[in-house]
């Protein structure tokens, strides 16, 4: 077991030296999680907005389901995606298992309910305020959704950042469907788990520091966005 202080020292040396192995893992992590958040936004924002302005029989049930999906266990999602993409699964012929694409699919499934549920709440609150005004202007349902999405953009970015936080920190699903293959599907969280088990604390700590820094950056970004929104009265 390495000395704790020495491990930290090595970790910072790897970080400051832009160690290629470390950078590769960080790059793949960001590519997978950012793509997953982008896909989740494409699906979750319109879905949340439509749910926010619509009233239909069974809506309460849909909302309960959506909110429940926010807490999906990553390993369960990983298992379901694994079964779907494995050779015996319906999408087996696509040969996506143990690829970054499989990891993006798994993370998208995890993040989409978060983005949709937060968007639904934001849009519903704003809709209560805007509804009569937009109707008196002759704005239809589609226009209303588009207007609300645009005017809620700062709050919705917060929802997307929350989704990114979930994706980048997730380990169970990407481990199952990605396999933690060196130079192929190894991301920060799976690498930390592996390197820790191997006793290579320097790399694990280096990656851990990056993850923590990302958490700080995400929180700072959220606070900055909220401050900007308040300054411009978008809140």
């Amino acid at each position: 077991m390495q000395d704790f202080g020495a491990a930290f020292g090595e970790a910072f040396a790897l970080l400051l030296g832009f160690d290629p192995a470390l950078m590769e893992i960080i790059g793949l992590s960001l590519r997978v999680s950012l793509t997953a958040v982008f896909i989740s936004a494409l699906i979750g924002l319109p879905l949340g907005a439509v749910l926010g302005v619509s009233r239909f029989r069974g809506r309460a049930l849909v909302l309960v389901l959506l909110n429940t999906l926010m807490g999906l266990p990553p390993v369960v999602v990983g298992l379901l995606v694994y079964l779907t993409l494995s050779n015996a699964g319906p999408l087996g012929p696509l040969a996506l298992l143990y690829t970054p694409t499989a990891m993006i699919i798994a993370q998208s499934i995890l993040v989409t309910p978060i983005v949709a549920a937060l968007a639904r709440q934001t849009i519903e609150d704003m809709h209560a305020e805007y509804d009569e005004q937009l109707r008196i202007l002759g704005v239809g349902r589609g226009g209303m959704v588009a207007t609300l999405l645009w005017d809620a953009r700062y709050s919705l970015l917060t929802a997307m950042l929350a989704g990114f936080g979930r994706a980048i920190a997730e380990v169970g699903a990407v481990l199952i469907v990605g396999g933690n293959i060196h130079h192929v599907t190894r991301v920060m969280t799976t690498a930390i788990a592996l390197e820790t088990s191997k006793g290579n604390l320097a790399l694990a700590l280096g990656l851990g520091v990056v993850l923590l820094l990302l958490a700080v950056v995400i929180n700072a970004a959220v606070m900055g966005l909220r401050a900007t929104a308040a300054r411009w009265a978008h809140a």
Partner: protein
Amino acid sequence: MPFDAPTPDRKDGQVLPIIGRGLVLERAGRRIIDNVDLAIESGGISIIMGPNGAGKSVLLRLLTGLLNPDAGSVSWAGRRPDRTRAPSVGLVFQKPVLLRRSALANIRYVLRGAGRAERRRRAEQALARAGLGHLARSPARMLSGGEQQRLALARALAPDPDVLLLDEPCANLDPAAAGAIEALIRDARDRGTRIVLVTHDVAQARRLADDVTFLHDGRIVEQTPAASFFDKPSSSAGRAYLDGRLLID
């Protein structure tokens, strides 16, 4: 690019006369509007007065199609209210609902059918008319209460509506801000927009009204030229209201 409202061309938007026949609206077993007949035809300023709870705001929502009556009907130029003609019916609420955009973008939102430059020109013109030209780039929701109400009024007038309904637009405004709103209302009237104004302010009603509709308990109890109403109201409810005796049930 921010999304803008699908405002149809003005030529498709004829709505006058607006006629409500036998309007009834019930909520929780109580008749909020009780068999009201009302016609809004071209020209002038009509004031709707009445104590709190008389049904004034609800009546405006029925006439604009925001609410559907439980009985009776509303027609715009002989047809049911419809979304494509909605921009010809402006409505300004007591508490303005402004989009989370700049003052200029709030007005540009309601203008369509012209090119980008033309929309901008018309939006700037509408802002200037409301005395808000210098605040074009300011976030709408950061403006003062009076400025926000003027912006809401400018936005409602920007599509050049046939009729403009205002629901206590000067409530909570100081006299100077209220005066600016009144000036905009007169200007709109002079340019041919029919005005229907709900107000509690008797002095304001005296300054603006061509005719007065007095509402009490969801019913129209008096509908008369302004001079008649203020000099010699024919209903006991109208007299009591002008004397400052409250009529709230």
